[in-house]
């Protein structure tokens, strides 16, 4: 038993799950065939085939984008190591630590942002220039405009993929506060925090107020704060020199940590270039045969 209309779920899938521009002619063809006596099973098979073909075409069309994003993001650990060495060379962390709140955080995040966006933009430009040149539409002003226009999206993506995991990871490290005692911040390591790190049960009242916290754990003195910071810095240096302090060894580092560092860059570059590749495809389909 079959009606005159095809299964509505299949039609919805055809309209919403096929990647790329909507193909009304194809939907009309399937409907025409169905109304001329095809069964529901036939319609479902056709819709599934359209979805599978659509996705495989998308993957095939973006194979070089994926290859490039993977290759470029493999350089990310090396880039981060260079930035880290640069920071250590100029003692940036220590200089930031001496600033008043909120400048340490603002400058720290700002520097990280500038360095990472620079790396991502360099990758995008390197990928796009040969393509734009081959198409004969290379205009540096347009390219610069495009990069600037992409900045908000890139920042949102970068914040989600790079900063948030970084903050999450740093929270698991017993990092001392860089914030001056006068600000009333209480991020300095407390005796409880190391116990929490070790997974020990710590009795704390949920309604511990800021005042109670400050009384229990008064902010450390400047000398204590700088000592803690120097200890932390030494630990960071030791981690950075894990790669042998060479960008080359950071690239070929097979450990999971290197992959975790590269993954956000891979996803960011892939998302940015995926859109660019789609624009190229649309432009090509508009060209007269």
């Amino acid at each position, binding site marked *: 038993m079959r009606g005159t209309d095809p299964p509505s779920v299949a039609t919805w899938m055809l309209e919403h799950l096929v990647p790329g521009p909507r193909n009304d002619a194809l939907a009309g*063809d399937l409907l025409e065939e169905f109304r001329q006596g095809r069964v529901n099973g036939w319609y479902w098979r*056709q819709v599934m*085939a359209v979805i599978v073909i659509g996705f495989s075409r998308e993957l095939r069309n973006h194979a070089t984008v994926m290859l490039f994003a993977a290759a470029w993001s493999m350089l990310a650990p090396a880039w981060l190591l260079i930035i880290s060495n640069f920071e250590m060379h100029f003692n940036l962390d220590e200089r930031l630590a001496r600033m008043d709140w909120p400048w340490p955080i603002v400058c720290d995040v700002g520097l990280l942002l500038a360095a990472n966006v620079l790396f991502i933009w360099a990758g995008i430009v390197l990928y796009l220039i040969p393509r734009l040149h081959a198409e004969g539409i290379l205009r540096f002003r347009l390219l610069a405009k495009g990069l600037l226009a992409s900045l908000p999206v890139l920042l949102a993506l970068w914040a989600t993929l790079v900063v948030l995991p970084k903050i999450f990871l740093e929270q698991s490290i017993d990092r001392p506060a860089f914030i001056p005692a006068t600000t009333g911040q209480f991020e300095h390591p407390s005796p409880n925090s190391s116990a929490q790190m070790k997974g020990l049960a710590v009795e704390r009242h949920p309604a511990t107020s800021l005042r109670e916290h400050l009384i229990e754990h008064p902010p450390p003195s400047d000398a204590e704060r700088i000592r803690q910071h120097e200890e932390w810095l030494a630990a960071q240096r030791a981690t950075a020199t894990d790669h042998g302090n060479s960008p080359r060894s950071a690239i070929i580092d097979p450990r999971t940590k290197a992959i975790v560092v590269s993954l956000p860059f891979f996803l960011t570059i892939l998302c940015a270039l995926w859109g660019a590749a789609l624009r190229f495809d649309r432009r090509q*389909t508009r060209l007269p*045969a």
Partner: protein
Amino acid sequence: MRLASNFWLRTIYFFAIVELMTERSYLGEFELMILLAVIQLGEEAYGVPISRELEVHRGRDVSVGSVYAALERLESKGLVASSLGDPTPERGGKAKRYFRITKAGLRQVHETRRTLSKLWKKLPELKGERI
């Protein structure tokens, strides 16, 4: 210095070259069948009759999606051109997309036919051997 700049230029262009390499210039079996169906159907060549024509001659079910994918590839190569017809109620108000072969497409079909004919003519020489 020049050697170094050449190396970097080649490295930068590597991905563009790879992309160009993946574009096939020859006709696949399915694409050739579709081109022949489009020629045969003339003015009435759109998704449904092309699929039916292929079903009849191949003797098995054809996915309309794969027909469209092949037609889009052919269109991007400039071997077919398409135009939209008027929307009709039996198609849910959706227009038909008519395809016609271009001069380049016709030339390609003839060339493929010549090549295949030459290859077929050589087959008797293989008589007695398992192919």
